């Protein structure tokens, strides 16, 4: 019963007006919460002790790790939306994965850049062809490819369906990224927070890290909802323009 209720609620969102109303109600709260968490997270990140070995550079972790998590979560959200597009023909799912692609690319870029900045003092090099780094770079390229494909097609609904197929095929990369550090023993350290047997990271670093992770997740959802809203508005504007042009053509 609850599941069918959830499904009706979800398909209600297919109506863009309902979604816009919901977004207008949620967005202020979400953005306020995101700002608050970022403030707390950043305060914690700068007030905790530096690592005895890494010193202050350990603080890069509080941006790097959440961004890397988000880059994978964003692709998973896109894959879910792609299933929504192909299976249920949910109109909002089209917009959702189109809007998420640039966000995912941005988070992946942040993870790559901060990782590179962290790698220079710690590993002594900006970049190595390590399994984790390479697979994340491939993820970045895939985001760009999906954006390019979306741009290349005129008809938005067809672009959405075709790029949904591509997203689902590209999803094979996500487990590769997740387990790359376990399968290949290279420079990047293995997972230390989400693992069987509890985190191996000290509580001192864990607290700000988790707060920052939640803050990044909320930031993603805030931006995602905003991007979906913008895309709906953009489509409405272009439809209105087309109608206006048609009317003008009829009168002239």
């Amino acid at each position, binding site marked *: 019963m609850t599941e069918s209720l959830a499904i009706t609620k979800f398909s209600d969102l297919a109506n863009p007006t309902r979604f816009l109303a919901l977004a207008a109600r949620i967005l202020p709260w979400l953005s306020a919460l995101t700002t608050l968490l970022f403030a707390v997270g950043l305060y914690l990140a700068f007030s905790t002790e530096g690592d005895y070995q890494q010193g202050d550079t350990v603080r890069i972790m509080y941006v790097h790790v959440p961004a890397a998590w988000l880059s994978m979560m964003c692709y998973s959200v896109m894959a879910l939306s792609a299933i929504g597009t*192909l299976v249920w023909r949910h109109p909002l799912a089209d917009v959702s994965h189109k809007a998420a692609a640039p966000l995912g690319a941005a988070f992946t870029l942040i993870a790559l850049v901060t990782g590179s900045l962290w790698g220079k003092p710690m590993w002594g090099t900006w970049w190595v062809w390590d399994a984790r780094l390479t697979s994340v770079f*491939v993820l970045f390229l895939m985001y760009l490819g999906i954006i390019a*494909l979306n741009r290349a097609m005129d008809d938005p609904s*067809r672009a959405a369906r075709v790029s949904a*197929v*591509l997203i*689902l095929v590209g999803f*094979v990369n996500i487990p590769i990224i997740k387990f790359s550090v376990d399968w290949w023993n290279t420079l990047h350290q293995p997972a230390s927070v989400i693992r069987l047997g509890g985190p191996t990271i000290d509580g001192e670093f864990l607290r700000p890290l988790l707060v920052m992770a939640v803050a990044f997740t909320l930031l993603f959802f805030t931006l995602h909802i905003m991007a979906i809203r913008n895309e709906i508005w953009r489509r409405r504007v272009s439809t209105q323009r087309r109608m206006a042009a048609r009317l003008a053509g009829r009168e002239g």
Partner: protein
Amino acid sequence: MTALLLRDLKLSIRAGGGALIGVLFFMTVVAVIPFGVGPDLNLLSRIGPAIVWIGALLAALLGLDRLFQTEREDGSLDLLLMQEHPLVLVVLVKCLAHWLANVLPLVIASPLLGLFMNMDEVAIGAVMLTLLVGSPALTFIGAVGAAVAVTLPRGGLLVSILVLPLCVPVLIFGVSASYAAVEDPAPFLPPFLILTAITMFFAVLGPVGAALALRNAGD
């Protein structure tokens, strides 16, 4: 299905040089590398397997964007979509035909290029074997890209951009298996078996994805 296979084979061989263009491109790419890195034979023999693999990868991608586009232009794609055979099978057969006509010649040409690269017999054999096993995966992955970009007027470059990132695992395991055959401590079999597994995996996923994209690309 056999008729479709034969038809595709004939078409790709008879149309404008067909397979030879791919082989020619492959040889050109591999022949240009020594100009870039210098004529040091030891260095060439060390990076040889990687170069042959990259050349083959690029050459295999070369003709891929035409995989479904010619069909779409003359309208036979609609016939393929409407007939009663499952579309997945049709795509699989088309991939096989493309592989036989365009990629198999590359595999056959690779020993010659191995000689150019001053590789020894074991390395040449390993590269040829890994190419034989790994290159179908490239075709199957490429089929998804080709199907996704089938309606685009200038999809060629886009197909390469979409497909290359997904080809990275094939390249990694192909090259590491070739190196493992030459260098002693690393065992040859594990990367080779993983390469085989990747090919099998994409033999299933590729046609399914391509069929899905083709159905959705129709107007």
